Each structure stands twice: as structure tokens, then as C-alpha cells.
């Protein structure tokens, strides 16, 4: 190349990039150089000859100079890289293909950013198929970005632009990639890769393609923050002096005394049970049930002793001032716990299904009280309807009996309706939750408020205003009094019943916070969001203490295991993930549902997980085997099948809500989607 031409290119490049100072200097230097050449020619003052003589550098400069804005370079560069990666050695292929997705989206965003809308679209559409399988939701979002300003506006795109993707890659694959990029002089691709990918090179053989999920999720800017946050210490242990503890103590006392007294003690328990059941008029189930309960009780004791000897679960102090429980409520809970049926992969629960009929497509949410006797439905016409199933059950078949004796409320004034109508909201009701004893209902609505209702007075007590956008979810804490809400305004808030202002505001999610759940020890809440992450927050400090990354779509439901160690989250695609809270790692993804998982619930002792989905099924998952399986075992067998224990299909009724009662009876609710003819 003619050196003068080259100088011109360099000049043009510098000017275009706005390096005016450098351009001026270069011009001066050239001028000077020329003068020198013309003149004495003795003093070679500048290093400008360097790049004139180096052919490699010349080429590089040339490649920069030639039509910097040419959009076809992206397409050519990417398609070359793609075909190279697809033709690479099988052993390293999956690692190299992993690089393609970030390159693809950044090529696209570069094209959009430079204003080549049409080319960007064409580029996107021609290579979209490659990534659709894993990244469909992201692609759908990005597809709409057509103008540079959209890149600025869209949170997702912005976070992608600002952050680097971490990709684990083995040494050899890395070398291959670099060799290729240098050999073909695809500086553009090299630039993109350098700018947006952070390679974590390790020595040795490449990993199998399936084992880490992080590799395929692009998480925007918070991978590093997540890593940082997840270092924090959390105490997932249960509260000391909980009711379960107390029961354990009394249980052990019982076993001690049993040794001496034999059957008589059991007889006493039986008697007291009978007395109680006659008191509240529940002879229907009579002896049979009691016997079963007794059997369950006996096994329960054994199991409990085992667990307590094997792994003494850590106990923590509550950081919140917890409400004092009245003694009769406490008694009834203890009674329920004593009568709990022990569940495992061989002892399945019974499922009682509440089907809403004639909802005319208006049921937005359903909630079941802790004893299963009250069912609330939130409707799109702003109303909340509460059914007392214990009463209906007594009048009708008697198939279902409330499990506690707290439902002594009077019948509603309107005898024709068998539900209580609660009116007050001015927008669709998105969530409802019962306080543990069932005396209060909280509801959240699109009118940005949360309302507290009394089921005894059938009236609205408080209206909590604070959120700025629709409140998607509200949940009572396991001990009542406190509750957590989350909203479209990207925050979750902690409230107490006696204050109209929130106590804490948890901000940090990058999109709507869609669901919230309390940790059993009340010191943490978990939130699931449309940004595809789940976060754990410290209630006392309001800080984010864990970020769980792995879902590929919006997180719709959360559940905490009763021992406080694990969490399950369900998403829009039907994937359920089990997380270990302390390490923030996904133990196992549970695949099986093929539509939104609306609801999750752990059984009382934590051995089973129930999930309810829009695909009209309730599934039961074996938690104990899921958590115990090692990675090696996972690879060998089709462990997914092992974990899904049962599937109960309903008759075209999507399952909106699930709850294990304290006695381990599973309640489910949903609105039948076909009109009954």
C-alpha cells in the first residue's frame, strides 16, 4: 500500500473516532517528516515508519479503515465463526458453541446501536434458530429492539451491554478459538469476544455439556454481585423453642413414660382425642381416623428421634419480635402436629381438591388456610370470596372436615350464598393469604393497595398503601402479624399489621417481583422475579443475602422446606428448581410440568414437595432422594423419573393453590376451565 494513502486512512480513522489531538499531532509529524525528507533527511525523528513497514500492522489498519460501518462484516464474521464452531472437534464443540450466543446477541446489539435496523433484523432472523431452544425468552425480548434508544431504555439490553459473560472453557478450546480468530483476522469478532466475554480457562479435559447451567444463562450485570452477595453468611436454622421442639420434648417424655406404663398412656391420648372430637362434633371419621393417626404418630416419634440424633439442626434466635400465641391456638397446633401423618416416597398423602365452578374466567388467585377449612378466591372484578368448607362439609357429604376447632364463626347474613363476599378493592385481586390461625385475610390488588380483612367480622380492617404499582403477591409470616408483599414497582416490602407504613423495603430486582415467601424462621424472605432470579433478603437489615440464578423465565412460585435448608422455585416454563440456601446452588432442576407452575408446597416434615401447574396436574416430588443424590448418580440413571413420584391429573382444572395442612393432608384449589354443561 502506498504509505501516503495509509497515512490518510489513519488520519481519517483518528478524526472519525474524535481523537482530534492525536490527528493533529500526526499531521504535524507527517508535515515535519515531509519537510525532513525534503530537507536534510538526516534526522529520522518519528516512529511513523514503523507502521509503514510492518505489513501485519498495515493490514490491520486497512481492515479498520475499510468501511468501518459496513454491516455485512458482522454477518460474515459471525457466520464464519459459526460454521467453524460447528465443524470443530466433537470433544470441544459444545464449549465453542457456548461462545456463540453472547457473540450473537452482541453482534445484533452492535448493529442496532449503529442504526442498521434492517441488517440487524435480517441478521437476527437468520441465526435465531440456533439459540431458540435455550434462550427463547431472551430472544423474544431482544427482538423488539430496533433503534439505538431502545437499547438504552431496556433494562435487559443495558445490563447485557454493560456486563461480561463468564464462560468456563478448557485450555485447548480457548487456544483453538484464539488461533482461529487470529488466523482469519476477524478482528471484529475478536473485539466482541474480548469486550463481552470473560473466559475462565481451566486445564484438562472439557466438561460434559450438561453439568453446569450457569454457562447457558446470560444474567446481565449481576453475576459478579451475585457471587459477592452469596458469600454472606446466613442462618437457615429453625427458631429455638419452636412448637416442634416443644413437641419433640413432650414426645420424648411420652416415650419415656411409655416404657413404664405401656399401653395406658396411649389409651389416655386416645381418650382425650375422642373427647375432643366429640366436643366439636366430628364423630364422622371416628375411630378409624384416630387409629391411623396414632400409627402415624408412633412412626413420627421414631423418625424424629432419628433425625435429632443424626443431624442436630442448628437453632437460631428470632430477630423480629414475634407475636405471642394464645394458649388455645398453641394447643390446637400441637394437637395437629401430634396427629401428623408421616409422609415419604412410599407413604403418599391424600389430596383434597377444591374446584371453583362458574368463575367465568375471573378467578385470579386462590388461597387455602393452614387447616384447609377456609378457602379464599380473589377475582378480577375486585371481589374476594371466602368459603368455609368445614361448614359446607358438615352440611353436605361430610367428606371433608376442618382440622382445627377454630372455625366457630357465625354464618353470613345472606343465607343463599354460602360464601362471604369481601368488597373494597378497586382492581383485580392478585393474591390473598390467611393468617396462620385463619382469623385474618390479606389481599393485594392492582389498585396498589393491600387490605386486611377479618374473617370473624367479615369486614375490612386496614388498607396498606405504599406500593406504587400493582401488588402481585402478599404472604403472612409463619407466625402471623408480619407480612411481606411484592409489586410491579420492583420492590418487596415487609409490613406489620399495626402500621400502615412498610417496615422495610427490599430493592434490587431488575424487573417485577412476582412472588414472595417467608423463611420458616422469619428472619428471611425470598422473592422471585421476572428478571429470572430468586433473591433472599434479610428481614432485619433489608439486605439481599442470596441471589439464585438459573431459571430461564419468570419465577412464579416459591416454597421453603420446613427445616429451612432448601427452597423450591417454579417458573413459567414448568421447571422447578431446588436450591440449597447456604450455598445458593441449584441442587436439581425438576422437569415434568409443561406449563406455568402456579404453586409449590412442602409437606410438614419436608420429605415431599407438591407442585400445581397450569397443565392441570398436581405432581409429587421426592425431596429426600433429590437432595441426597450425588452428581455421579445423576449422570448414571434417569434420576428425573425417580424424583417425580406421582402425577395426579385433574379434569381440565389448572391448579392455582396448594397447601399441606399441619396434619399433612394436601389441599389443592383451582378453577375449572371448561364450563360444566
Amino acid at each position: 500500500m502506498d504509505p501516503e494513502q495509509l497515512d490518510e486512512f489513519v488520519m481519517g480513522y483518528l478524526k472519525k473516532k474524535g481523537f482530534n489531538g492525536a490527528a493533529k499531532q500526526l499531521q504535524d509529524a507527517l508535515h515535519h517528516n515531509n519537510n525532513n525528507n525534503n530537507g536534510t533527511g538526516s534526522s529520522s525523528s518519528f516512529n511513523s515508519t514503523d507502521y509503514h513497514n510492518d505489513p501485519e500492522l498495515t493490514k490491520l489498519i486497512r481492515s479498520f479503515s475499510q468501511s468501518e460501518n459496513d454491516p455485512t462484516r458482522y454477518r460474515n464474521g459471525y457466520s464464519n465463526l459459526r460454521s467453524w464452531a460447528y465443524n470443530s472437534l466433537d470433544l470441544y464443540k459444545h464449549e465453542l458453541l457456548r461462545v456463540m450466543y453472547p457473540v450473537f446477541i452482541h453482534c445484533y446489539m452492535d448493529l442496532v446501536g449503529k442504526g442498521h435496523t434492517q441488517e440487524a433484523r435480517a441478521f437476527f432472523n437468520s441465526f435465531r434458530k440456533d439459540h431458540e431452544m435455550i434462550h427463547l425468552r431472551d430472544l423474544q425480548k431482544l427482538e423488539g429492539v430496533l433503534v439505538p434508544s431502545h437499547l438504552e431504555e431496556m433494562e435487559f439490553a443495558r445490563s447485557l451491554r454493560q456486563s461480561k459473560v463468564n464462560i468456563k472453557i478448557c485450555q485447548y478450546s480457548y487456544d483453538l478459538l484464539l488461533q482461529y480468530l487470529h488466523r482469519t483476522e476477524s478482528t471484529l469478532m475478536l473485539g466482541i469476544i474480548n469486550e463481552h466475554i470473560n473466559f475462565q480457562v481451566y486445564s484438562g479435559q472439557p466438561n460434559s455439556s450438561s453439568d453446569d447451567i450457569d454457562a447457558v444463562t446470560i444474567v446481565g450485570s449481576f453475576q459478579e454481585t451475585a457471587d459477592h452477595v452469596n458469600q454472606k453468611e446466613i442462618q437457615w436454622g429453625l427458631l429455638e423453642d419452636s412448637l416442634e421442639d416443644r413437641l419433640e420434648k413432650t414426645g420424648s417424655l411420652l416415650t419415656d413414660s411409655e416404657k413404664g406404663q405401656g399401653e395406658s398412656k396411649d389409651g389416655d391420648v386416645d381418650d382425650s382425642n375422642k373427647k375432643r372430637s366429640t366436643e366439636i362434633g366430628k364423630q364422622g371419621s371416628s375411630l378409624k381416623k384416630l387409629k391411623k393417626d396414632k400409627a402415624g404418630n408412633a412412626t413420627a416419634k421414631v423418625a424424629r428421634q432419628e433425625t435429632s440424633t443424626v443431624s442436630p439442626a442448628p437453632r437460631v434466635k428470632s430477630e423480629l419480635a414475634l407475636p405471642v400465641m394464645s394458649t388455645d391456638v398453641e394447643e390446637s397446633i400441637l394437637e395437629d402436629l401430634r396427629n401428623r401423618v408421616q409422609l415419604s416416597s412410599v407413604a403418599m398423602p391424600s389430596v383434597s381438591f377444591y374446584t371453583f365452578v362458574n368463575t367465568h374466567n375471573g378467578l385470579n388467585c386462590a388461597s387455602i388456610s393452614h387447616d384447609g377449612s377456609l378457602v379464599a378466591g380473589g377475582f378480577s372484578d375486585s371481589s374476594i370470596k371466602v368459603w368455609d368448607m368445614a361448614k359446607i362439609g358438615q352440611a353436605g357429604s361430610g367428606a371433608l372436615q376442618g382440622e382445627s376447632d377454630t372455625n366457630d364463626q357465625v354464618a353470613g347474613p345472606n343465607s343463599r350464598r354460602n360464601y362471604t363476599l369481601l368488597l373494597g378493592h378497586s382492581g383485580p385481586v392478585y393474591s390473598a393469604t390467611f393468617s396462620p390461625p385463619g382469623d385474618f385475610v390479606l389481599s393485594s390488588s392492582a389498585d396498589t393497595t393491600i387490605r386486611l380483612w377479618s374473617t370473624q367480622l367479615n369486614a375490612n380492617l386496614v388498607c396498606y398503601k405504599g406500593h406504587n404499582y400493582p401488588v402481585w403477591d402478599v404472604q403472612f409470616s409463619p407466625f402471623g402479624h408480619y407480612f411481606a408483599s411484592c409489586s410491579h414497582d420492583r420492590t418487596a416490602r415487609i409490613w406489620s399489621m399495626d402500621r400502615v407504613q412498610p417496615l422495610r423495603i427490599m430493592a434490587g430486582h431488575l424487573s417485577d417481583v412476582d412472588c414472595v415467601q417467608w423463611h420458616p424462621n422469619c428472619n428471611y424472605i425470598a422473592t422471585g422475579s421476572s428478571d429470572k432470579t430468586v433473591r433472599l433478603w434479610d428481614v432485619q437489615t433489608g439486605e439481599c443475602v442470596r441471589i439464585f440464578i438459573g431459571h430461564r423465565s419468570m419465577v412464579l412460585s416459591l416454597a421453603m422446606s420446613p427445616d429451612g435448608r432448601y427452597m423450591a422455585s417454579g417458573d413459567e416454563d414448568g421447571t422447578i428448581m431446588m436450591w440449597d440456601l447456604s450455598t445458593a446452588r441449584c441442587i436439581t432442576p425438576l422437569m415434568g410440568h409443561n406449563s406455568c407452575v402456579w404453586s409449590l408446597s412442602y409437606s410438614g416434615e419436608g420429605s415431599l414437595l407438591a407442585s400445581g401447574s397450569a397443565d392441570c396436574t398436581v405432581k409429587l416430588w421426592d425431596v429426600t432422594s433429590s437432595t441426597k443424590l450425588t452428581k455421579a448418580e445423576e449422570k448414571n440413571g434417569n434420576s428425573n423419573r425417580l424424583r417425580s413420584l406421582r402425577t395426579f391429573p385433574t379434569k381440565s382444572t389448572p391448579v392455582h393453590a396448594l397447601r399441606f395442612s399441619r396434619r399433612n393432608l394436601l389441599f389443592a384449589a383451582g378453577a375449572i376451565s371448561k364450563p360444566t354443561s
Partner: protein
Amino acid sequence: MSIVPKETIEVIAQSIGITNLSPEAALMLAPDVEYRVREIMQEAIKCMRHSKRTTLTASDVDGALNLRNLEPIYGFASGGPIRFRKAIGHRDLFYTDDREVDFKDVIEAPLPKAPLDTDIVCHWLAIEGVQPAIPENAPLEVIRAPAENQIYQQKDGPLIDIRLPVKHVLSKELQLYFQKIAELTMSKSNPSLFKEALVSLASDSGLHPLVPYFTNFVADEVSRGLNDFLLLSNLMHVVRSLLQNPHIHIEPYLHQLMPSVVTCLVSRKLGNRFADNHWELRDFTANLVALICKRFGNTYITLQSRLTKTLVNALLDPKKALTQHYGAIQGLAALGHNVVRLLVLPNLEPYLSLLEPELDAEKQKNQMKSYEAWRVYGALLRAAGLCIHDRLKIFPYLPSPSPSFLNKGKGKIISTEPNKRKLSVDSSSAMQVDKPMGDDNPPQNSVQPSSSGQASDGNAPESRNAKEKEGSKGRAITMKAILDQVWKNDLDSGRLLVKLHQLYGDRILPFIPSTEMSLFL
């Protein structure tokens, strides 16, 4: 570029009163419009998810607009999803069907029924991990070998496909149910209870695990109890109920069921007593066979062809008994007019010539035999008649009195005969030709008609007699006119009709639709 074309932007601009929008501006706006639409849809989908739905509705979009502080779009507040229609001539253009309604009509319309109030029903989805087979639960899946077995076998023995016996657990309740139904079917003592059982069989969900047992039961009992007419009849009713049950997936067991059903249709002897009305059973079974063909013909393409083959073979074998012929004819007739036209009519002439000696009272001394022969003759006449009736219906310019033959009431045909006989064709039995018994009681009619089927039988020889006796000349002329007319209408069916008329004489006439008849008269 953007999926929103520039033209759309221009149209929208015009519609809101901006006339001087430059094409460049439209071009610039288009991508942003697309982005905004996508943004709204993203929010709308969130609203949909939080309403626990999987179908997007107009209210979700309104909710999304609300989130962005925009005015909702009014006028789409229907509860369900909006129905779009395709614009004719445009591939990708849709519109909502929004008809103009007269205000007066709306006001004057009676109030619609109040919608039912929301309620909750509860049932057991599972009891200790097992789903009870109650109507509230979804019907159980077809029982098949669990997938693990096969996978397991593929591992160690790739070529040998050994199926492990499937363990089939039947609940106590189902076992009792099966026993009770089987008892009722066998006992024949309590017809009202049996009727109830049939209703239960036809409607209950959760019976699916019993289907293999029922098919087995039917097959066993049919092969064992060919002499027991009532049992056979009951069994066929059971089969019919099973077929009617919408919750039962009977297809895999069809191959077991078909032989017994066909047996009940074309068996030489059904029942052992003279009084047993096996004709009726054959008719019933013929309908059953047609029902099966209609329902499963699409999935088993060979089903109908195999069936017709069996039946035609039975019909054309002169060694077979007349009862068997009767069953075959009824079966073919039930399968539809096309089957009759293609398979029965070509064989009609030789068959009738075979039947002729049996029909003649003088030659055939055995009264029973002659009765059977008339029975077969009647069935043939009916099949051919219905077929020709169907053919004649096709003529476009003949005003048809009723849209379908099945809905046809009693079409009265007034013939020109001097004694003004009234012939009425009933749709249900189609061959039941009621008429006032004239002065001439034919000698063959010694068997007293007791049922509707027998009435028709009595009629057939009589009308033949009548023809022989009366056969008036004027009438023949009319007939000729009709035939000529028909001939002109449709060569094919005209020829058919002529042929049929040659074979049957006047007896085919009741099948010719009344208006056509009266038109020619």
C-alpha cells in the same frame, strides 16, 4: 425492517388527523411503534400470568396500558378472548366481528339468564397417593406396560422383545361393579335394573380398567351361549353401552369385540326357541356394527372392508342358511347406501332367482322356511328401496319434502288404485308398511304378526299377491311415465330403478319419495 410497515403508520396518522406526515417520519416511527407494542405485550403477559391464566385477554392489555399510565382501549370488555376473522382476499389481515345492533332489539330482547354464582365443590383427587375413579377425576390412562421394562430390556437383550406381564391392580369397588354387571347380564330376571346398569355403563367415568374384562366376558359368553337368545341380546346391549361411554377408550379392545358382534349378526342360529325374536337382535346388532364402523373407520381403515367382505361372503354363499343371509343384508344395509349400491344391488338379480322357489308357497311346503325366505326378501327390498330412495333424493330439481330421510315422517302416498290404499312409510323401521287389511287375506299370512318387524313381513307377500291380482293397466302407464322421467333425469339411477322395478314390481314404490310420486301422478 420493522414488522410494522410504513403504510400502517401513515394510515394511523391520517386517522388521528395528521395529514402531512412525511414518509421519512413514518419510516422512523415504525420501529418505535413495534418496540412499544412489544413492550405493552410484555406487560400484558405479566398481567395474564398473575391472573393465573394462559390465554391473553383484552383486560390484560388494558392492565398493561394502565401500568404505563396510558388510557385503556375501550370497547373490548368481553370476558373471553376476542374472536378474529380473516379478511377475505388478504392473507394476514384480521378483524373483529363487530356487528351493528339495533338499539330497539337490545332493549326489547328478553333478559338473559342470570349467570350461575361462583361456588366450590370439593372431591378427593387422591387418597393416600391413589386416584379414586370417580366422575370428578380425569379418566385413567390406558393400561400399558411401564416404559422402564422396555428400556431395561433394550439394555441387555437388544433383539428379543420380551414383554413382562403387566401387573394390573383392580380396586375392590371395580371388582364388585364388574361382578354385579355380569350377574345382571346373565340373570335376565330384572329388566329394569339391567336398564339402569346399561345407563351406568354408558355414562360412568372410571370404568376404563374394566374394559378388558368386559370384552373378555362378552366374547366368552357369546361363544358359549349361542342358544340363549336373551343373554345374547343383553350382551349386545352391554357392548352398545360401552361404545357409548365417552370416558372409555375402547379401541385397543375392538379386535376382541368384533368377532362376537359379527357372530350375533350372521350366526345360523340365535336362540333355540321358536318365540325368540332373533330378527330383532340381528337388526340391533346391524346398527351396532354400523356404529362401530362409523366411529373407528377412520382409525382402522381396513375395518369396514374386512367387515363387508365377511358379510358379502355370507350373503353369496347359497349353502348358508337364510337367517345368515338376513343378517348379512341387514349389516350391509346399516353400513349405508353406497355399500348397498356397490355390493348388494349387483348381486340382486341372481340372488332373487335363487330365492324365488323358496318364496313360492306351492313349492315350498315348509312353512318356517318360507317365512324365513319372505323375511330375507323383505330385508333385501328394504335395503334396495332405501338405496334408491337415497339416489332419487339427489336430483336437484325435484323438490324434496324433507331434508333427510331419517327425519321423514309418515309420507302418505295416495296411489291411483281403485280401493285407495294408503301406504305409509315409517322412518324408524322403514319397512313397516301399515295398511288397512283388505278383504283379500293372503293364504301365506298364517303366521300372525306380533311385532312391527313381522307386520312388514306379512305385508310383503300380500302386496305381491295384490299385484298379481290387480295389476291394472292404467297404473302401468303411470309407472312408465315415471320411469321415463327418471330415466331422463339420471341415466344411472334410472336404469337402477327400472331394474329394481323389474325385480320387485310395485313394492319398490313406497320408497320413492312422495312428492316425486305425486308430481308424476
